[in-house]
């Protein structure tokens, strides 16, 4: 098998009591790409992420990381391989300091995470690296803040720094700019661009402006199946994609109206 693809799925399917949320998806993520996964609400994007990282058991199909199946692995093992995800809802440790958030990610490779008899000050040797990571996302001056106190956009930046601390080969980002103001969207877009150097990114993104600026490959999901694939220009010209989006937007308007 070629190792061209970092992550690949074959016939990946997830059924919830008869309802097929992800339907025979064949996804191929190329090394070094910033790959967007788009599609209307309820298309199955988050479910697909949950399958890729085994947060949900898969019904059928296979997942390959660099050509090897990871379908039987545990979530934590997949993370240790270098496939690291973020979450649609901001995922930080709210009552730890900003520095501690990043440090938790740096700590595991030290090999002392089960040492309940040691004082936590042994972790201080990670502070310099943690500060560097915080600096890379512009959070160094918040290092000692309790994380809940951060504004939303900063929390997402912290999440990115924590994910980067894992030195992932591929990052799965679920709507990293969701719920942000324009300014934050631009900042996070830049952060992702920087973070993408030397690694692969698969991201769910609703903001098509971000997708067009950032991503060199786009997969469109609707009702659990892939309906289009390619670069942004070709995908956005696809009539099926237009229809899927129009349909869902009409739905959403109805939802908000009701």
């Amino acid at each position, binding site marked *: 098998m070629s190792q061209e693809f970092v992550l690949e799925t074959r016939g990946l399917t997830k059924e919830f009591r008869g309802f097929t949320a992800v339907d025979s998806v064949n996804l191929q993520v190329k090394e070094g790409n910033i790959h967007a996964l788009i599609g209307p609400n309820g298309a199955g994007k988050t479910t697909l992420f949950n399958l890729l*990282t085994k*947060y949900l058991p898969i019904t059928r199909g296979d997942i390959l990381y660099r050509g090897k199946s990871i379908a039987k692995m*545990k*979530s*934590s*093992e997949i*993370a*240790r391989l270098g496939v*690291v*995800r*973020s*979450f649609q809802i901001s*995922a*930080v*440790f*709210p*009552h*730890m300091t900003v*520095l*501690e958030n990043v*440090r*938790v*990610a740096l*700590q*595991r490779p*030290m090999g*002392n*995470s*089960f*040492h*309940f*008899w*040691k*004082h*936590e000050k*042994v*972790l201080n040797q990670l*502070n*310099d690296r943690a*500060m*560097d990571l915080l*600096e890379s996302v512009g959070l*160094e*001056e918040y*290092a*000692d803040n309790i994380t809940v106190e951060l504004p939303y956009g900063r929390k997402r930046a912290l999440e990115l720094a*924590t994910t980067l601390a*894992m030195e992932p080969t591929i990052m799965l980002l679920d709507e990293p700019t969701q719920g942000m103001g324009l300014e934050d969207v631009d900042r996070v877009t830049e952060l992702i661009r920087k973070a993408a150097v030397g690694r692969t990114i698969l991201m769910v993104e609703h903001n098509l402006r971000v997708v067009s600026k950032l991503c060199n490959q786009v997969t469109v999901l609707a009702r659990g199946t892939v309906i289009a694939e390619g670069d942004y220009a070709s995908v956005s010209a696809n009539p099926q994609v237009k229809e899927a989006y129009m349909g869902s937007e009409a739905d959403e308007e109805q939802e908000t109206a009701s």
Partner: protein
Amino acid sequence: MAMTETTKARVSAVQESKKAANRRRIMIYLALLAVALIAPFLAYPVFLMKILCFALFACAFNLVLGYTGLLSFGHAAFLATGGYFTGYLLSQHAVTPEVGILVGTLAAIILGTFFGLLSIRRQGIYFAMITLALAQLVFFFYLQADFTGGEDGMQGVPRGYLFGFIDLENNLSMYYFVLAVFLIGFMLIQRTIHSPFGQVLKAIRENEPRATSLGYNVDAYKLVAFVISAGLAGLAGSTKTVVFQLASLNDAHWHMSGEVILMTLVGGVGTLVGPIVGATFVLTLTHQLAQSALGDWVNVILGVVFVACVMAFRAGIVGELQKFAKKNFK
């Protein structure tokens, strides 16, 4: 490296304030220790020992509920296991008390590992149900087994000579030994919480899916915390048996699992000294009420305290005091 001078200064400032907080904490601990050291001259030592044993039991329980986020409804099994094993060894094999206590603790650790392996994957109420069911199994086993004395319990356990030469029949010697056991247990918990392992536990409690996505096998960490807790609960039970020279089915009953939840919640779940305060409060209240004319109303009053605590003072005595202190002295 890339760290700027200002951020370095900030980090050291925070470390300074942490150090100051540490100093304050050490002062408080020293004051409490002084009280504990003179207490047997001011109050009835056996009652104080009872408080220390239950305080250790509650602290152990708090490691699971407060610091790992697991509601165990089966901790009575560990308390009783420690008690029965120690009682059996002291009565039948004439070992020295420290050996009896060590073996009792070890038995609780083994049982805790077994409980943990069967239950740790479950969340919330399912975890509570499985631990309860397993503890009931243990209860019926102790009810039927010969060596426990069934419903009569194990009576007249000799306290013996600590290390072969300190006579524990002397209540004062016994008290200081129990105090030492308690302090060892308490310090182990305090260290566990402030260790690299404790950091991971905190992360798991705060956001379990995120901890998993950082590569932590969260079940393994929860299991270790659960086993430490079971062992310390066993240690409390073993020590209690030596103090009271008795091991009984009461300790294995699900009431006991409920009582330790009550103590922890009343004192303040997830605070280091909360369970100590809670155990003291509940035991003192029970003791006072039992001596008053109220008799059987004890449980009703305890129930009311519990409801008040859960509804109005969710953080418990220590938790509410901490909140108050933060608001007014900052």
